[in-house]
């Protein structure tokens, strides 16, 4: 029981404190690829610290929805992070919700974020909210089908069981179905975390904003919670990809030595995936909004092919 609680606390700490690092790493690497120096790997921590201490301006038109949104978003994203196996195949809380719960918890956070954006009354909020809900809805079938392919391979929607099954066959990612599912989820990852070519996290140009348009009115502590949630969401989705498809180094239990090794392997895998995402970002231009569905349709076809090839190979 105490072991369980310690594992939960360890994972809370991991999700909270690792997520800004991945964000900072991505930004710095992107800056280097654009021949800029960048603000440094630890800048997101400094940003969060500063925002948490700053005062806030709440729009006069906003209701309690606007105030509740950062908290709901933060709780749902953090909880999703606890259901996913990160440094041990035994995620501490995975019995209480499998991959469906993860996807739907993220959806609950997004639901509130979109409402919070509409609550301000500004056109930007509505614009971001409308686009976010559209893109996430179109991404959903590809996400689910790819997830189903993996879950069906493991015979369970429980993510610990999926990770255990993956551990049993570490080289399984070479199977066509796994590669196709990974490709589909990679596209979904880019869409869901608002990266180029779907959305540009660094822009405040009104015609192209999606995520930034929704959070335009947030400031201070609330903005910190939302930014942190975005970083955690990225970590959650990346963890899903790396640990389900490439379970190398993942420890089966919670033994101290295994966990430390597992942590190092985990960070390394995350950084590699972040490099892949940044390379996509640095070598592509942002798509027009109405070209995004085509990209996501590609993801859907990939995941459908992944599914069909599970019983061919």
């Amino acid at each position, binding site marked *: 029981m105490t072991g369980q609680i310690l594992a939960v606390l360890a994972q809370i700490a991991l999700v909270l404190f690792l997520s800004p690092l991945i964000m900072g790493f991505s930004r710095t690497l992107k800056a280097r690829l654009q021949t800029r120096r960048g603000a440094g790997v630890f800048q997101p921590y400094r940003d969060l610290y500063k925002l948490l201490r700053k005062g806030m301006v709440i729009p006069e038109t906003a209701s309690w929805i606007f105030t509740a949104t950062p908290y709901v978003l933060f709780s749902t994203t953090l909880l999703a992070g606890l259901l996913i196996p990160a440094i041990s195949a035994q995620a501490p809380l995975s019995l209480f919700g499998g991959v469906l719960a993860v996807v739907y918890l993220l959806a609950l956070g997004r639901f509130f974020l979109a409402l919070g954006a509409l609550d*301000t009354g500004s056109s930007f909020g509505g614009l971001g909210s409308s686009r976010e809900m*559209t893109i996430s809805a179109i991404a959903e079938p590809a996400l689910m089908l790819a997830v189903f392919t993996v879950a069906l391979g493991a015979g369970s929607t429980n993510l610990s069981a999926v990770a255990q099954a993956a551990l049993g066959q570490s080289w399984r990612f070479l199977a066509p179905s796994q590669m196709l599912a990974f490709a589909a989820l990679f596209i979904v990852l880019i869409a869901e975390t608002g990266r180029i070519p779907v959305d540009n996290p660094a822009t405040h140009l009104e015609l192209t904003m999606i995520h930034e348009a929704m959070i335009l009115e947030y400031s201070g502590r609330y903005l910190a919670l939302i930014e942190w949630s975005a970083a955690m969401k990225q970590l959650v989705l990346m963890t899903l990809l790396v640990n389900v498809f490439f379970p190398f180094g993942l420890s089966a239990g919670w033994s101290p030595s295994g966990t430390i090794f597992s942590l190092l392997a985990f960070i390394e895998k995350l950084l590699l995936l972040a490099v892949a995402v940044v390379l996509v970002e640095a070598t592509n231009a942002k798509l027009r909004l109405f070209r995004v569905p085509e990209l996501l349709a590609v993801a859907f076809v990939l995941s459908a092919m992944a599914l069909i090839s599970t019983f061919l190979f």
Partner: protein
Amino acid sequence: MWPIGELYAAGLFVYALGSLGGLAGHSARKTGAWLASLLCLLSLVAALLEAGASVGALLAKTETVAWSLYSGVPYLSYAVRLDPLSAYFNLALSLLAASVSIYSLGYLRHGADGGTPGLFCFFLNLLLFALTLVFTASNVLSFLIAWELMTVAAYFLVVFDHESAESRKGGLLYILMSRGGTGMLFVGFLLLATAAGSMEFSALHNIGERLTAFSSTLAFVLLFVGFGVKAGIIPVHIWLPAAHPVAPSNISALMSGIVIKTGIYGMARVFFDFYGAAPVWAGMVVLLVGVISGGLGVLYALMEHDLKRLLAYHSIENIGIILMGFGSALLFRSFGHPQLAALALVAGLFHTLNHGVFKCLLFLGAGGVFHATGSRNMEEMGGLIRRMPATALYFLVGAIAISGLPPLNGFVSEWFTYQALLAGFGATPELTRVAFPIAGALLALTAALAAACFVKAFGITFLALPRSEEADNAREVSPAMRTGMAILAVACVLLGLGATWFLPVFDPITNQTFGIPISGNLVAGGGLLLTAGAVRNGSVSTAVIALLLVALGAVPLLLWLLWGRKSARASGPTWDCGLPGLTAANEYTATAFSKPLRMIFAALFRPRREIQAEFDVSPYYPKAIRFASEIQPAFEKHFYDPLRVGVLTIASWMRRLQAGSIHAYLAYIFVTLILLLLFGVRG
């Protein structure tokens, strides 16, 4: 032991009393208001009595009340019984009827448009009476009589505001399509009853296996489409978005909450009681219809900015989700997997109740908004969360539930549906199995679009600045109306968080149909976990998720304690790009919100728009802009319009027979008589 029969009979009696009371007082105008209150209280009492009877029947786990009354005509009798399936639907009805009755106490205080409150209560109680009988009738004759009584009572309630042309038109479409559906039911039931040699439902158990292949197929299709008309499956759904919005709001709530569920009840009865192992194609058809109804239902809902029409389209979507569960259950039974069939059936039946609860709640909320603003058009609303905080909160609960988001009840039944679909992959032969995950992916699309739609519905209606004077002056609805909504909102939460304690309700039903009490397989961890047949297949706990969501709030609290206590919190205007102040005209509209999806699915919607700008000097500085946008209703245009033209052509051709001359008619009668005599002599 529980006096189940007495409670059931008393409930029916009180409904009848309420109905007759309404009829007696239908002309009372002055005393109308308190008479209506009295009659609403009567229906509340009746609903509570019926709820008691249903709970008792479910606890008894077997068929309890079984009465029949000889009609005087050979082979025909009136009969009722409360078997587990009937009791379950009757329980759902009672819950909704109770909250709608309380809501109506407030709703009818200012009278009912188009008639007296007494007359309204006559039809309302008659509808509830008929619905109870539909769910409990135990032979074909009683069922069809109750069915028609329900249809007629519902028709008069839809057209209650008979001075509005829209109501009359919606009502006409409803009654026409219902008639067609009942016709199919008649033939379908007769095919079954002929084979069984009896009209009793108990004699029809597993009759499907004894039919010839042809009449089995024919009866299945007729009964599926016949019940499908009432349930609102695509493509026989068109009456639903026409009739539900125009009815008074408490009636819309009942229509979408429970009246369309009579179609689902009929399907459950036919699929799982009358048919044994149905052929594979039957399950596939039901699954396919479910997927199509789910997807198209939500897509059409997204294009609506009439709040009640939007909700009506969502009913089609949710019927689709229910049918995904039913279709999978049929397939599993065909392939010999009773455990999985029971899981899928539970998914469908649970979603039936859940949809009833949150859809009823949402319609009551929409009714409150209509009551306060006098409009159903979302583009004229906004800012209602400040003016009607309670209604907004309840509507939000319903919106989260219908979007299938954790930890509320919609999530639980959608989770079971996903699990049933996933299980289908391993349990069926090669070609069939691909259908399941694809259906699951489309369910995911449907649910995500529903979330988008309810962000729009809630956000545009309740948030930001009011878009019209009526919305600005809106007032919170009366306590009775709030209570009606509160009961359903609490039910959404309880059915979500307490799902593990509710699941044993399905045991007698799955025991009756598949011989397995399923809840033992679906609940684990000391009543904490919901599982997909076994913990290793996947598990979830809505209660723990809810608890953790609250507990994790400690992290932001800690951060605030550490660094945030001294930070200032000011209120300021929303960023307006430097223009002089933000107005409601700057807000996103419902039409704008759904524009990306309208363009992405343009092949389906075929949107048409028209923009006219007036300007003095340059087209870049317009004085006024007129914008019109519409989508093409595909089914109406490509299926029903040709059908209507065809029917009218045949009718005008047949009119030649009816020349209006009495000689011609006498000749027809004479010829018919001769033909009949010849037929008789030959036979």
